């Protein structure tokens, strides 16, 4: 019982972090296999469990639902009690969530390679697993809101808005996008389903990954640099505009498809307006650092989280740009969109997830990271790898898009792309190597028995500028 469901504070967060690191490694290996197959499709034996069409959903689902989500869960099991100045409502229940959620990811691993899929992007997991995810999210909602209800700090810090809100949105988005209609595949009929799917698909990144990553960044950057955020009003603007704007933008994935025109217009307008909440957040965490910038680099975790916010900046300039119909004539269907996905989920989400792991683990364990050097090395591998993926796919995408627009057929453009796919593969090897170092570092940090550090001084996390 005490091994399975320990009551020790921080045990659940720690286990979530460890599982996250392992899922990162598993997920990027599938990504690398896919990338290699795009360079040399006959390298691996022709086998259905290894084919690109199975690797790709496996890659995405393991990384989004395995790597990113577990790291975020681990992060807020620590952050929520910290900003509420209380204890987690039930550590045992949180530990139950660890096992339960990991069982879900294992179930994904055990179904997707066998072609058990709903066939909808980001909603591939079969219905039974979807239900289980809803149950797991419900448990986490209970843990988070239960803890918030017992808070001793009267101000609710902005991290808690994003984390609590983000979980509720996750539950809703998942339920309507994926679960409640027509049990076996959770979809609507006809073109309506695409509108539903991209409402869902877009919100998986916008209302599931984004708020959780932002919530953690709002906690870690001010705390690590001992600098309060810039303005409470900006937090409010960023938060409310995120929920209002992001939800309207799903149709920017369908700008060239036969869906109603007014929906397209609405999605474009909102996509561009999204710059406001993005900059509200960035201003809030960046501006106070203007003359203490070097503090960011003291902690490797904070450094990664900060880098994640830079990626966020780039992603959210690229995104509105790609939402313009005249730009999308070139970019849609090309690898440039996949470049965007990678700086979004690996650059922004992934760096914040890894940074949160490195920042919070030492606090929970009350001892240093196993190796700062290893972590720094991983940081550079991952950073260069992500840049490599982004740049190579950007070039490939521009070549594709321009050539198609000029009347070139898909087949004739293929020889042009090869070199960029090779570069992407090399960049991928760097990310995979980084992931190996990450697993080693996290594992050894947890296993190592060293005397605890002196207890931390006063907490900075609730210093909200009024």
């Amino acid at each position, binding site marked *: 019982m005490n091994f399975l469901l320990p009551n020790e504070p921080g045990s659940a967060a720690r286990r979530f972090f460890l599982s996250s690191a392992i899922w990162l490694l598993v997920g990027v290996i599938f990504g690398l296999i896919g990338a290699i197959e795009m360079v040399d499709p006959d390298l691996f034996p022709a086998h259905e469990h290894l084919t690109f069409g199975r690797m790709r959903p496996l890659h995405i689902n393991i990384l989004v639902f395995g790597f990113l989500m577990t790291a975020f869960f681990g992060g807020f099991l620590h952050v929520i009690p910290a900003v509420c100045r209380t204890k987690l409502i039930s550590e045992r229940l949180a530990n139950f969530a660890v096992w339960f959620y990991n069982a879900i990811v294992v179930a994904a691993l055990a179904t997707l390679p066998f072609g058990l899929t709903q066939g909808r992007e980001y909603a591939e997991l079969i219905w039974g697993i979807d239900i289980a995810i809803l149950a797991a999210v419900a448990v986490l909602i209970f843990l988070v809101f239960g803890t918030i209800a017992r808070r001793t700090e009267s101000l609710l810090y902005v991290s808690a808005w994003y984390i609590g809100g983000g979980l*509720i949105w996750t539950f809703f*988005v998942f339920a309507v996008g994926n679960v409640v209609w027509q049990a076996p595949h959770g979809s609507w009929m006809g073109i309506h389903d695409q509108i539903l799917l991209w*409402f869902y698909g877009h919100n998986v990144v916008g209302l599931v990954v984004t708020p959780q990553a932002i919530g953690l960044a709002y906690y870690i950057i001010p705390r690590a640099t001992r600098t309060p955020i810039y303005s409470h009003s900006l937090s409010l603007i960023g938060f409310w505009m995120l929920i209002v704007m992001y939800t309207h933008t799903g149709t920017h*994935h369908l700008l060239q498809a036969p869906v109603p025109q007014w929906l397209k217009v609405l999605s474009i307008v909102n996509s561009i307006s999204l710059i406001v909440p993005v900059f509200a957040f960035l201003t809030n965490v960046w501006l106070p650092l203007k003359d203490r910038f070097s503090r960011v680099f003291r902690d490797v975790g904070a450094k990664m989280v900060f880098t994640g916010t830079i990626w966020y900046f780039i992603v959210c300039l690229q995104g509105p740009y790609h939402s313009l119909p005249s730009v999308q004539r070139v970019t849609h269907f090309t690898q440039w969109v996949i470049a965007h996905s990678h700086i979004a989920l690996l650059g922004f989400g992934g760096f914040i997830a890894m940074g949160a792991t490195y920042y919070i683990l030492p606090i929970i364990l009350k001892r240093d990271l196993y190796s700062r050097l290893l972590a720094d090395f991983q940081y550079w591998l991952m950073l260069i790898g992500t840049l490599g993926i982004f740049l190579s796919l950007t070039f490939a995408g521009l070549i594709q898009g321009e050539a198609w627009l000029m009347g070139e057929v898909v087949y004739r453009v*293929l020889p042009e792309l090869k070199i960029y796919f090779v570069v992407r593969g090399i960049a991928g090897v760097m990310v995979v190597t980084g992931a190996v170092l990450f697993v080693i570092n996290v594992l050894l940090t947890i296993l190592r028995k060293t005397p605890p550090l002196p207890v931390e001084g006063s907490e900075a996390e609730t210093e909200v500028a009024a």
Partner: protein
Amino acid sequence: MIHMNARIVGIGTAAILVLIFFAVVVTPRYTNPMADQPSMNHRARTAIEESGRDLYISLGCQYCHSQYIRRIDWDTGAERIAQAGDYVGEYAPQLGSSRNGPDLSQQGGEHTDDWHAAHFYNPRYTRPESFMPPFSYLTGTELAGITAYLQSLGGHMADQRVARQWQWRGQATAAYEAGADANIEWLHRNVPEGWLRVPNPYPITEASFLRGEVIYQRHCLGCHGPVGDGQGPAVRFIYPPPLNFTTLNRHGIEGGATGGMLYYQIMNGITGTAMPYFKRELESEKIWDVSNYVAKQFIGIVDANTEPRGIDAAFEPVDSAPVQVRGN
């Protein structure tokens, strides 16, 4: 200053979310009757086609292939822009988000079943530059299902193309089975008279020959083979098999021009057989180049740059034989 608390965060935002969900997802569903009306081209699928669709989804074809044609497209299927009514009655329509391979929404009738068999076994057999994964492990029934599904894509228009393929297929098979000479005679009978009188307007220069070679390697090798004997790796799957170009020499090309005949057949393909058309992939000059290459390298009968000149070449190399200027 707004004081945020759990109730605002939880219930307030959830209310906004529900509201917006109704606005942007539920409203379009009930205010867009066009999307529930089958388009003129739409038809329901048969059971075997549905089984192929399930396989398509389970093998993840949708991650590389889209299924809708946009206003700006030129490639396969571009003759018909997608309409909302094309997807009526389909669960989880596979519009796709990435085009690593061509759009498949109008795939039906573009290729014959034997082309698909070779292509699925290993896409490099019919398309040497492809990076589509091999599907050699599919069983006979699976292959039949997924091919039937591909042939159904494009609704009634696809059905017409498929019917035309089958009609010609009967003739092509009969001609092939009647022997090599009869086959070639049948093949040439289907080339319009005019084309049989057009020699290749392009002189064979070193540059154009090399270009022809590259085109051959990128497009033709898998079927017609590296030496043009029709023994490329795809041959096991294709019936009637790819033409052995060297037999054309024996057959002679009496009274006709090799260039125009080859041009016509490469441009249009041979309907009913696996021989695809190349008019989308290759511009005019490239087809002339590969015709010259095939004629010189494999057939051994070359009429490049000879009389009567039906068409002027796009360029006249200074070091080639003197060229007569037509007109004045």
